[in-house]
């Protein structure tokens, strides 16, 4: 079983290396198939391993295995450990499964790009990193995966590196993630100092013994890492920019897998967070704020992928709320369903963009329903799932989170509950704003000029792009049935052992009640969107609810977070660096001890040369004065 996990981990790495080494010796088309095949194999391994895990008795389901000692120094020791349990299995399946589909999709999407091989190498590298992150049995190893994920994300966002905007976005993502890495690393330091180990076993066993301040500090530091990776407040600004990358990347990394790593981390570290209630509350607060803010911003975006990106941020904020409330299973469940419908939405958007020759602005779309019916259908399913319309998957998972808030019942939980419902309204509006602007209404002139012709020639897309979408559509529709309140209980049962201190589980009544409310709100949101955007008018991109220019302006500028960072950090740092270089380092360290002293000694040397004037009687004078002077000094001294 562990062998399979190792294999699943090694396969994408091997794929990446193979692609990098073979390079142009590999036919361009072959690269995609090779990468996809690797992913399929990895998925198969994961699936079989999961089945084998399921056959084990409950208490033997957490398996640890060390390949070799990775790093040691003094008492500090990190093994190359894998930790395979139920949570790992879920993540493995999501990463390899969705990953496989996206690989296949990419074959079509990237066709004709001259850098195809590089793309698939990066994709495989990403999957390896993500797998390392989820199977790691040691916090340091998790951090390694954590960082490598960021690296692959950087590479993929900046894949089209000729575009300065893409490179800028990639750098931004990397730096933000590096901040998160540092936070995570600091948390690991603290845990090592307190517990003497960074392996999960030791940390889980020792978490309870930590005093509450230490536990809170460690948890908050880990949370910094989670926030950066999952693009949550206040480290979220990189995610919308990350849409500069190719669409499959957005689907894989910025929807299904990487950005959910923060949720995974919190769920994984639940014994620690359990010991740090303040940290959990912080997570809830951040989650609520994030889901509202991201939903609001999504209302006014015009880039199709950015809308989905903000939606992703918002949905992950839901997951944060879930894990923050202690309903780890609900958070992971939402992660699971979200992976399907969000990947689906991105891939659908990718098909649209493909058909429009790269156009991403929703104002240049419209009316595509008739041209691309299959895509429309699939995306509709995805959108409904996102809004949480019964019986699609998103509803079950989101409502599980909200109803958990009911179960918890603290004031904060109530806030979360209300916030979540408001968020659901926003979700309905922005999702169907997207759908209406893209697929309904009258075709924009650009779309009219491009889309019908493209579809006529190539169909809605190559089958390698469509089939993954179909599969995901199916998944988005049905995976929610794993956990139908009162009926099925698979997900909770499966994940229950990962939280030794127990998980919050709402009652079926709470869940159904919430579902009722949430679905109504969602439908209301759709209706509002219909009211606003289905009618033809001259300003479709405007969210006309907020008439104040201030709100519009603020939302369009994403509530000024980027500007804040620029003014608060970037510019001062740039200025400081320039100042130090020009006015401090060069003169003080560079000039003064070398040229400065050199100038001084040269001046002294020339002064001495002046005395050495070549006139012999002047030399004699110096000698005479020297003798007289020495004599005087010594006679005075002797006297």
């Amino acid at each position: 079983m562990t062998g399979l996990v190792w294999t699943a981990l090694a396969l994408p790495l091997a794929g990446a290396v193979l692609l990098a080494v073979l390079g142009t010796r590999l036919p361009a088309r072959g690269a995609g198939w090779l990468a996809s095949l690797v992913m399929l194999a990895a998925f198969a391994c994961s699936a079989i391993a999961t089945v084998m895990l399921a056959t084990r008795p409950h208490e033997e389901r957490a398996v640890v295995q060390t390949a070799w000692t990775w790093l040691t120094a003094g008492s500090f020791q990190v093994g190359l450990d894998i930790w395979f349990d139920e949570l790992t299995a879920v993540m493995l399946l999501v990463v390899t499964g969705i990953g496989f589909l996206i690989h296949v999709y990419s074959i079509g999407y990237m066709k004709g790009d001259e850098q195809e091989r590089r793309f698939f190498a990066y994709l495989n590298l990403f999957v390896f990193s993500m797998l390392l992150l989820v199977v790691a049995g040691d916090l340091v190893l998790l951090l390694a995966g954590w960082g490598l994920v960021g690296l692959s994300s950087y590479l993929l966002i900046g894949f089209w590196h000729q575009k300065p905007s893409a490179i800028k976005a990639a750098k931004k993502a990397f730096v933000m993630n590096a901040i998160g890495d540092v936070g995570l690393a600091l948390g690991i330091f603290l845990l090592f100092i307190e517990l003497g180990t960074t392996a999960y076993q030791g940390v889980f066993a020792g978490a309870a013994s930590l005093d509450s301040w230490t536990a809170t500090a460690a948890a908050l530091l880990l949370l910094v890492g989670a926030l950066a990776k999952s693009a949550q407040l206040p480290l979220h600004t990189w995610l919308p920019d990350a849409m500069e990358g190719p669409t499959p990347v957005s689907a894989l990394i910025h929807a299904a897998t990487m950005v959910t790593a923060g949720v995974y981390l919190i769920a994984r570290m639940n014994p620690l967070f359990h010991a740090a209630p303040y940290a959990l509350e912080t997570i809830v607060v951040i989650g609520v704020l994030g889901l509202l803010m991201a939903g609001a911003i999504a209302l006014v975006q015009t880039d199709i992928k950015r809308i989905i990106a903000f939606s992703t941020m918002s949905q992950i904020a839901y997951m944060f709320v879930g894990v923050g409330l202690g309903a780890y299973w609900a958070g992971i469940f939402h992660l699971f369903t979200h992976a399907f419908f969000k990947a689906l939405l991105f891939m659908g958007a990718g098909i649209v963009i493909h058909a429009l020759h790269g156009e991403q602005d929703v104002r240049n779309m419209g009316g595509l329903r008739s041209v691309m019916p299959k895509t429309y259908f699939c995306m509709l399913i995805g959108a409904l799932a996102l809004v949480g319309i019964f019986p699609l998957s998103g509803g079950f998972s989101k409502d599980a989170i909200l109803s958990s808030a009911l179960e918890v019942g603290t004031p904060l939980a109530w806030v979360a509950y209300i916030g979540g419902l408001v968020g659901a309204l926003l979700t309905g509006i922005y999702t169907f704003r997207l759908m209406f602007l893209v697929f309904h209404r009258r075709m924009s002139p650009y779309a009219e000029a491009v889309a019908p012709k493209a579809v006529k020639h190539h169909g809605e897309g190559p089958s390698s792009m469509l089939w993954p979408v179909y599969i995901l559509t199916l998944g988005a529709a049905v995976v929610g049935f794993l956990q139908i309140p009162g009926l099925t209980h698979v997900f909770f049962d499966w994940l229950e052992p990962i939280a030794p201190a127990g998980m919050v589980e709402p009652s079926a009544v709470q869940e159904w009640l919430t579902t009722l409310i949430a679905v109504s709100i969602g439908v209301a949101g759709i209706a509002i969107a219909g009211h606003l955007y289905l009618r033809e008018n001259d300003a479709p991109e405007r969210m006309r609810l907020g008439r104040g220019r201030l709100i519009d302006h603020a939302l369009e500028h994403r509530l000024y977070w980027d500007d804040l960072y620029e003014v608060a950090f970037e510019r001062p740092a740039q200025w400081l660096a320039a100042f130090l270089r020009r006015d401090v380092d060069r003169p003080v360290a560079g000039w003064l001890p070398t040229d400065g002293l050199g100038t001084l000694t040269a001046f002294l040397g020339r002064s001495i040369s002046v005395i050495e004037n070549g006139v012999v009687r002047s030399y004699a004078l110096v000698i005479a004065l020297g003798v007289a002077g020495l004599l005087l000094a010594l006679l005075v001294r002797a006297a």
Partner: protein
Amino acid sequence: MITATTLITVPLIAGIVILIVPFAQRLAGYLALLVALGMVGAVAGFVYRFEPMAGYQFGDDAEWIPQLGIRWSVALDGVGLAMAAVTALVVACALGYGLWAGRDRTHATFGLILITEAFLFLVFAARDLFVFYVGFEGMLIPLLVLLAVWGGEDRRRATVQVVAYTAFGTLLMLVAILWLGLTAPNGPDFSMAAAVGRGNDLVFWAFALAFAIKSPLFPLHGWVLPAYRQSSPEVAAVLSGVASKAGGFAFLAVLVPLFPEQSARYAWLFIALGLIGFLWGALLAFRQPDGRGVIAYSSIAQMSFVVLGIFLLNAQGSTGATFQMVNHALVSAALFLLAGWLETQAGSGDFRKLGGLARSRPILATVALVLGMAALAVPGSSVFASEFLILLAAFADAWWLGTIASIGIVLAAMYMLRWISAVLHEREGDLVGQLRPPDLRSGALLAVLPLALALIGLSVAPAQLTERVDPSSQMMVSGAYGEKEAR
């Protein structure tokens, strides 16, 4: 029998022979490369035979100048072996690059590089203060000549700056060594063992100054930028890759063990300087207009960080510092070779004239990316492992120390990404468009590849190194650690 003496004598003699005998250019290059590869083999043999717990090994100890109590005493422990290994590798790669790039009067450059290697080995293996001084000062000569003769436009000034700094430091150290050696209780004795704990503050500072300049530790880094910028790529690689490590190594292997009391007492100062230097170098690297500037300031930052790690005086700090030195040697040597290659091929290292090189140059892009990512310590890389250890040690020392230091990691990410994108990405620069530089191939690739592969290897299993280094490095700081605990 191959011992540490072999490591020193063979490249020294070979270097002098190659320097003097006017071989044909190619022949001299191949001979030098052969010797350098032989050294790699010899060091590999040492690594294979090394017993981590057995202290100093492969040593020789013989009378040299008995009148002064000076012995030819050389041996390698884990730390020294790690440094020697990386030196052998870096020098071989630098020679390979030089051979490929082709210089006028090759035999002289190659001979001098081999001589440098010999002196470096001497520094890393010395067990006698006199021997140590010979290596420490001796390596300066060939490097200076290499810089002064084969350097860039502004080489004169660079040379003078290097001399002004380094000579000053080492000569004061010489006086300190004399004091230690000649005032030994049982007559003159220059062995390091006899000097442990005997120094006073002045002697300590004389040593510290020399090492700080060589490292370079903030604020004594003024010579670095001109030296690194004006050297030819292979010399810059040796200079920043391994020669500067002599300073860091000396802090760990000489200063701290010899002066446990002072090291513990003044540790705070070195920690502070290391911290400032780490951030300072990173900030300045961020504003450099060319690749070498970035790498030079990142070297300052990294070496300051190493000093910080050493003066934490615990196992993670010292092992991490050693490991970090190895990593940085590989990274900066490779980056300098690459930056130098770029300058030759694209006509300039100026960012404004570069850019867009990744387009249709997959090998260059891959190698540069791997190195860049290693340099910015992407988690999972070997540099990450070493920085992690140092930061962990810093955090254990004081939480705020580790926290502030970790800012440097983020800054490192920023300047390395700037370098990568300025060179590889975005629009093609003017010079790139005009000169159409080729992809990284043949000799230049072969020279950089071993360094990159070594980095990858160390990323896969860093413990292979740390396990060998750890007992030695812990031993080195144990005395000072005891003092620190006692305070």
